[in-house]
């Protein structure tokens, strides 16, 4: 059973194993710098379906299938699915796994959902309640634009701090045994709201939450700052990453040189014109399920701290003048 180290952090003594992982992405992500790491690249933004929402569900469903086939298990071997997305009532996740007949917890952590689902899945395995759990999320540029911003064909200009929602789905299967990367610590974030109200500047809204969680992680685990080969935040983007680095340094945590952000990694900012970088649940999920776990399993990375960040606002709350509450959850993944 795990050991509580502090207000936010739990050490998982059985070290649940990430047995398999997968990521399927859209065309833009596939043509980005990490393109070769993804399992599949789907050029059709509808994925052969009638609507963007159905397309997003299919991304999640196909990724789920991929995780199972790569892990050489069938649906009967999975005790829980933890999944979520950005759409109202999390329809991409529920419709995506509708036919699986596996006990399901739907989650909403905005773009932090990958770390949230991985935390809960690992807890389930650590607690002995599950042999295997699948943790998976999705997002889709077109369905997110429709829900949070303007119609696709509307001729407006993007602000330089805005980010590009990643189209795709990524996920992992955590289980008791195996040789894969292991989940060793979970640091659950609290909501941090620094009063930012600009929905085109999520990086600024989320950076303090990421800083708060990373600071709590090092304070409560007492690990040295150079313990990790890579600390990677979810989707702060170029601007948010820069802000987060400075906030961390003010807290005495200097991680320059081994700190990255999935939103920065997934696109080529200059060529792909994505302004501050990627965002969305699938941003951190596809970078984890495509690139990071691949690097870990090849031992090109040995220890990473995966910190997915989320902005917990809605279009309605913004119209009512509310600021953007943000959250970040951290999961340590290590090769042992």
């Amino acid at each position, binding site marked *: 059973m795990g050991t509580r180290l502090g207000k936010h952090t739990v050490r998982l003594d059985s070290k649940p194993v990430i047995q398999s992982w997968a990521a399927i992405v859209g065309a833009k992500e596939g043509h980005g710098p990490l393109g070769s790491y993804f399992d599949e690249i789907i050029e059709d933004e509808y994925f052969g379906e009638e609507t963007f929402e159905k397309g997003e569900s299919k991304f999640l469903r196909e990724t789920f299938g991929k995780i199972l086939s790569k892990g050489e298990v069938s649906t009967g071997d999975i005790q829980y699915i933890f999944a979520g997305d950005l759409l109202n009532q999390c329809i991409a996740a529920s419709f995506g796994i509708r036919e699986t007949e596996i006990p399901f917890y739907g989650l909403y952590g905005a773009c932090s959902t990958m770390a949230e689902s991985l935390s809960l899945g690992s807890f389930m395995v650590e607690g002995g309640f599950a042999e295997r759990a699948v943790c998976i999320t999705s997002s889709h540029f077109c369905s997110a634009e429709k829900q949070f911003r303007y119609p696709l064909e509307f*001729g*407006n200009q993007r602000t*330089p701090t805005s980010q590009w929602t990643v189209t795709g789905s990524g996920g992992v299967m955590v289980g008791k045994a195996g040789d894969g990367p292991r989940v060793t610590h979970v640091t659950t974030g609290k909501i941090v709201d*620094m*009063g930012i109200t600009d929905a085109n500047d999520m990086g*600024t809204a989320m950076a303090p939450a990421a800083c708060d969680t990373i600071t709590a992680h090092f304070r409560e685990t007492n690990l040295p700052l150079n313990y990790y080969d890579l600390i990677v935040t979810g989707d702060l983007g170029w601007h948010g990453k820069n802000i987060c680095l400075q906030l961390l340094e003010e807290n005495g945590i200097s991680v320059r040189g081994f700190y990255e952000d999935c939103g920065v990694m997934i696109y080529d900012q200059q060529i792909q014109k994505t302004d501050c970088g990627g965002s969305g649940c699938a941003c951190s999920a596809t970078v984890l399920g495509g690139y990071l776990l691949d690097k870990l399993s090849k031992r090109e990375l040995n220890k990473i701290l995966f910190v997915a960040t989320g902005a917990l606002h809605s279009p309605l709350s913004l119209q009512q003048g509310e600021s953007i509450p943000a959250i970040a959850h951290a999961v340590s993944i290590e090769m042992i």
Partner: protein
Amino acid sequence: MEQKRTKEEYKKWSQKQAPKSPKIKRILMAFLVGGAICTIGQVIQNALLGTGLDEKSAGAATTLFMIFIGAFLTGINVYDDIGRVGGAGASIPVTGFANSIVSPAMEYKKEGYVMGVGARMFLIAGPVLVYGIITSIVVGIIYYIIK
């Protein structure tokens, strides 16, 4: 964790480092794109005047032509690119107004013709219409009184 800055201070501090819009470039492009759209409108109007239409009818017919062009370019996925380059220069002329109505109509077609297209068509143009009509009523009343 203690925050070292108040919310106001954080906002100012982070905004100072945020990437800025290329203002001069955007203003110039808005001028060029907006100017080009208006020039096309003028060419159409002159052509219509040449067919013997009076000025008022030619003006109305030109608007119809421009609305069609805006709607058509939205339909073939071009107007969003013009808007990205031209900014306000593409959205203020009547072609931009057409774009703001046709784009949600296209987007919400899958939700049906009544609650989708019908209800969402004026998602962006709605406020413009409401306050445009109110303003025109107020101006009309003032004009009536001082005439």
